[in-house]
């Protein structure tokens, strides 16, 4: 049974003759535990699509159903709850909060959860140890490398143990070594049952995914399972 169902998604910006259609009639289904890459040229609409999948960017029309929940029939607060419970985000620019330590950044999704301080710390340390960064827990983001920042962002994304991980050009700011390490982490969490949807330019990174969606001019051009993984 499909875990994520995108049905005829459309997204336009602007009105009338100046309207730009960023996503046009895109439909697909993703099963639980899949590792999907979304590829396309710059401006093709793949990040807009990821925003829609992330319950942060309502489509102009169409439906998105995750785990039986019609996401855009929820109000904004319920969408926030959905993001907290179902999604982990990894962004290209790390998006760490500069005045919080690595541990506190990882604990961020837990801040509004009714859990004890100790339990939150344990969960955050567990997530950090999974990405191999436990020893840098007390550092500020400005005191760690780019690769470590990305791994911190990864730890923050999985600290809640969400069923879905969304990544937007996660290796965009990394060298090939750090990029490979990051992809290895994606594979690891996918192997643990996490559904991963990753937007990327990189064929090498896309090779880690088991399924590839190609977007062009806002349309889904192809949806296929590559013969072999690059890893």
């Amino acid at each position: 049974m499909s875990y994520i169902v995108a049905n005829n998604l459309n997204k336009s910006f602007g009105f009338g003759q100046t309207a730009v259609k960023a996503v046009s009639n895109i439909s697909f289904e993703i099963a639980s535990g899949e590792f999907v890459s979304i590829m396309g040229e710059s401006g093709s609409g793949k990040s807009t699509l990821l925003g829609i999948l992330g319950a942060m960017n309502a489509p102009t029309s169409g439906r998105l159903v995750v785990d039986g929940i019609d996401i855009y029939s929820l109000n904004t607060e319920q969408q926030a709850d959905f993001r907290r419970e179902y999604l982990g985000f990894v962004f290209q620019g790390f998006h760490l909060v500069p005045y919080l330590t690595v541990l506190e950044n990882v604990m961020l999704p837990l801040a509004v959860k009714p859990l004890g301080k100790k339990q939150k710390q344990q969960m955050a340390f567990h997530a950090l140890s999974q990405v191999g960064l436990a020893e840098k827990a007390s550092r500020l983001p400005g005191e760690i490398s780019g690769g470590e920042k990305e791994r911190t962002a990864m730890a923050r994304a999985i600290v809640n143990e969400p069923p879905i991980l969304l990544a937007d050009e996660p290796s965009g700011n990394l060298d090939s070594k750090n990029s490979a390490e990051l992809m290895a982490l994606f594979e690891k969490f996918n192997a643990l049952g996490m559904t991963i949807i990753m937007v990327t330019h990189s064929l090498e990174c896309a090779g880690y995914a088991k399924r590839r969606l190609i977007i062009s001019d806002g349309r889904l051009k192809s949806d296929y399972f590559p013969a072999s993984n690059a890893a």
Partner: protein
Amino acid sequence: MTLSLISTRNLLRRKGKAAFILAGLVIGVATTVGILTYVNAVSSDILHKLEQFGANILITPQTESLALGYGGLALGGVSFELEEIRQPDLARLEHIPYAGNIAAVGPVVLGVASVLDQRILMAGIDFGVSHILKPWWQVQGNMPAPGEVLLGADAARVLNLNTGDMLPVKGSLMHVSGVLASTGSQDDALAFVHLEDAQALFNKQGLVSMVEIAALCKDCPIVEMVGYIKEALPDANVMAIAQVVKTRMEMLGHFKRFAYWISAVILFIGGLVVLVTMMGSVRERTSEIGIFRAVGFRRRHIMKIVFLESGILSLLAGLAGYGLGLAFAFTALVAEADGRPAQIPFSWEMAAGAVFLAIALGLAASAYPAFLAARMDPNEALRAL
């Protein structure tokens, strides 16, 4: 990890902005506390000084006859020749409610004496309280000792007497200790002697013709005081010189209203400083807010972060503003005291009010920035990077 940790960490990181907001609130609260404290202290002082305006309650013997005089021109009905008030009865005034508001009680014995071919109205008074009841008096010479006389300006002119001269009264000679500078009142035509001397001269031992009272009711209605005095002295007429009291209270009222308006304007400006700074802070933190929303913070969580920040700063501003306001008021009072000791009492009500005012102002000024932050679209916020 809690929302309050995020707020405090952000404040510590953006020290400059936090200090600016703090300064805006501290200035507003300190000015308000300073003005109010100063006004309260000065009001008390003014009340004290206003008492020096002289008597504002008059006790006269009860009479059934009507006064035949107008505009200072007496045509008859010499009331001082009517029945008198018993001096021992005046002790009852010490036990009436609001007795503490009575600054001075001045019994007066009036009598007419023939001196140097002139008839003169002599007044026996208590010179110990004359500086309260007649603070405008300017004596050329000295206040009289027992057996001496103080002449009004007109009386001295008509009798052709000066300080140091002798005044023959009812067979005895009284030394003129001084002459009053012209007051423009009835006092100019009188000769003032000690109360006991007048009682002896006019055979009115234990009696007084009238009583002047200087009282100021800061916290009580003067009309009630008059009522209590009437109860204590049922055989006397008691009159409040209402206009004096009214004027005193009006002066204080104007002064206070002006101070409150100034405080309100400064608080408004302080609120604007908070509003503008918080708006800037929220805009600066667009990406952060995007992250918070992306990881599942609700709008109310974002608002709570902003309110916590302004609440923490407001609390500090309230405490600092109260201390600073007291210091302002104290400095101002010392500067005006001309060497007299200045005192500012600590007031829990004022301290609590200052903190409450700061928090209310801080939260009110942060409401719109908090609302804007909460309304921020997470997708747009993240794309802003």
